[in-house]
C-alpha cells in the first residue's frame, strides 16, 4: 500500500504542532533555569566586566535564527548521546544550585543546550551552533579566585610595560609592583586596569566581527586571538597617558568621569586595531 502523500494543510498543521512543542520546551527550559538567568543578570548589571552579557543572548538567538534552515531534523543524523549529556547537565545544575556556584550552574545551562541540540538536530546541529554556544560561554562570570589569578599577572605586565615606556620617554619614576611612583604622585594599577575587563568584551566583539565578516574558521580564530594582545596594549597605552598627564600637566586622569571616558576611548581604539587586523586577514579569506 502506498504511503500517504502529505498535503500542504497537513504539513502546515505538523509544522504548527512542532512549533508549539518547541516553544513549550524553550519556555520550560527558561523556567527551570530561571534562578541562573536571575544570577547572570545581576552580575551583568553590577559588574563592568560582564555588561556585554546583555547583548550576548539576543545575538546568539539571532545567529540560531539566521541558521534555522540547518536545523531540519534528519532522523538519521540525531544523536541519542545528547540525552545523557542533557541529563548530566541537569545533574550539574542541581549540584551547582545547592552549592550556590553560579559559574557551574551557567556552564550546565550551555551543556544542556549542547545535549538538547544533538538529541533533536544531530551533531550537524551542534556544529552549526558552535558560534552561539561560544558566545554564551562569554557571558558566564569567571569564579572570583580564577579572575584574581588571571588579573594579577596582567596587572603586573601593564605596570611594567607602561613604566618602562614612560622612563624611556624621560619621565623619572620608580615602580614598586603595581605602584608607580612619580615625583608628585603615586599611581596604583588595580584590577580594573589590568585589561581583563576590556579583554572579555573585546574577545566577544572580535568573535562577532569574525563570524559575520570572515568565512574561514581558522581566520576567525586568529582574529579572536588577536584581541588578547590588543586589549593588553591599549591598557598599557592608557596607563602611559595617565603617567604623562600627571608628570607634564599635573592632571589626574584617574578621577571619574575622565577615567571612564579614557577607558572608553582606548577600548574603541582597540576595536579599531581588531578591525584593521580583520582587514588584513580578509585577504586570505577565499
Amino acid at each position, binding site marked *: 500500500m502506498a504511503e500517504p502523500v502529505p498535503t500542504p494543510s497537513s504539513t502546515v498543521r505538523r509544522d504548527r504542532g512542532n512549533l508549539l*512543542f518547541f516553544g513549550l520546551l524553550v519556555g520550560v527550559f527558561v523556567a527551570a533555569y530561571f534562578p541562573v538567568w536571575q544570577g547572570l543578570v545581576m552580575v551583568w548589571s553590577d559588574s563592568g566586566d560582564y555588561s556585554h552579557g546583555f547583548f550576548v543572548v539576543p545575538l546568539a538567538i539571532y545567529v540560531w535564527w539566521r541558521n534555522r534552515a540547518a536545523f531540519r531534523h534528519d532522523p538519521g543524523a540525531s544523536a541519542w548521546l545528547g540525552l545523557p549529556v542533557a541529563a548530566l547537565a541537569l545533574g550539574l545544575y542541581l549540584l551547582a544550585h545547592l552549592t550556590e556556584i553560579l559559574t557551574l550552574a551557567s556552564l550546565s545551562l550551555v551543556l544542556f543546550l549542547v545535549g538538547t541540540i544533538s538529541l533533536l538536530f544531530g551533531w550537524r546541529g551542534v556544529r552549526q551552533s558552535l558560534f552561539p554556544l561560544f558566545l554564551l560561554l562569554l557571558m558566564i562570570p569567571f569564579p572570583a579566585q580564577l579572575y*584574581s589569578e588571571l588579573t594579577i599577572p596582567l596587572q603586573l605586565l601593564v605596570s611594567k610595560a607602561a613604566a618602562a615606556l614612560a622612563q624611556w620617554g624621560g619621565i623619572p619614576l620608580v615602580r614598586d609592583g603595581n605602584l608607580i611612583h612619580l615625583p608628585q604622585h603615586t599611581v596604583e594599577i*588595580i584590577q580594573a586596569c589590568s585589561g581583563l575587563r576590556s579583554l572579555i568584551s573585546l574577545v566577544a566583539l572580535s568573535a562577532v566581527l569574525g563570524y559575520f565578516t570572515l568565512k574561514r574558521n581558522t581566520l576567525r580564530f586568529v582574529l579572536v586571538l588577536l584581541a588578547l594582545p590588543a586589549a593588553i596594549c591599549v591598557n598599557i597605552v592608557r596607563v602611559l597617558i595617565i603617567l604623562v598627564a600627571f608628570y607634564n600637566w599635573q592632571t589626574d586622569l584617574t578621577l571619574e568621569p575622565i577615567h571612564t571616558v579614557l577607558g572608553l576611548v582606548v577600548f574603541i581604539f582597540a576595536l579599531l586595531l581588531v578591525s584593521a587586523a580583520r582587514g588584513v586577514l580578509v585577504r586570505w579569506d577565499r
Partner: protein
Amino acid sequence: MGSLSRVRVVILLLLLVATGIGIYREPAATEHEPTTSLATALAHIPGWELVSRSALSPKIVAALKLDDYLQARYSDGHGEVALYIGYYNSAGKVGAAHDPLVCFPGQGWQLQDRTQGILTAQPSERPVRYAAMIASHDAEQQRVVYWFQAADRTAPDTLSQKLTLWRRRLANQGQANAFVRVSCAMNGFGPGTCQETIDAFIRRFYPVFLDYMRQSSTKRVATANANGRIIQ
C-alpha cells in the same frame, strides 16, 4: 520547523520539570544563630590579651552581608597578631567576597610565597587546614594565614567550604560558616618567626572558636550593626 521528534521533546520536558521541582523545592537551609556574639565569645583567649577591637563601616558590613564579625588584635607579651572573622548564619552567603586572593590585590597588596598548611590545635579535633602567604604594601609586610570555616571543618579555599556545606545541607545539618584570617606584621622579622607567633595563637584561639561555631539555636536571622553586634 521541519520534522521534529516529539518523543524526544517530551523526554527533555520531563527531565526539565523534574529538575525544576528539585530546584524550587530544595530543603530550606537551616540557619543557626549562636547565643553570644563573636566579640563576647573571643574576649578571652588563654595566654593572649585582647589589645584592641575595631569596627567596620556599615557600608562594608552591608557589602559583605555579614551576620557577625570580629576585627581585633591580640598579644601574648612577645608577639602580636591581628584577627579578622567574618561570620555567616547560612550557606546562602558563602563566597561573599572574602577570599584574600580577590581582596588583597584589589587594595594594592602584592602577594607572594603562597602555601598551604595543617596545624593541630587539639589532638581530639580535626586539624586546621589553612592557606598562607606574604602580603606587601609599600614598606609593610605581613604574614597572613587564613581559612574558610564550615561548621567544625576548615578548608584553605572556598570551593572545599562550599562542598562541605552542601554535604551538611543534604544531611539537614547546620550551615554556619565563617572566614578566618590571622596576620602578623613582619617588621624586619622573617616569615618563620611570624608563622610561629600565628601558630601559637591559633592553638589557643581555635578551641574557643570551635566551641562558638558549635553553638546553635533556631531563631529568626538578625543582622550585624557597625560594631559587629547582632541586632534583632
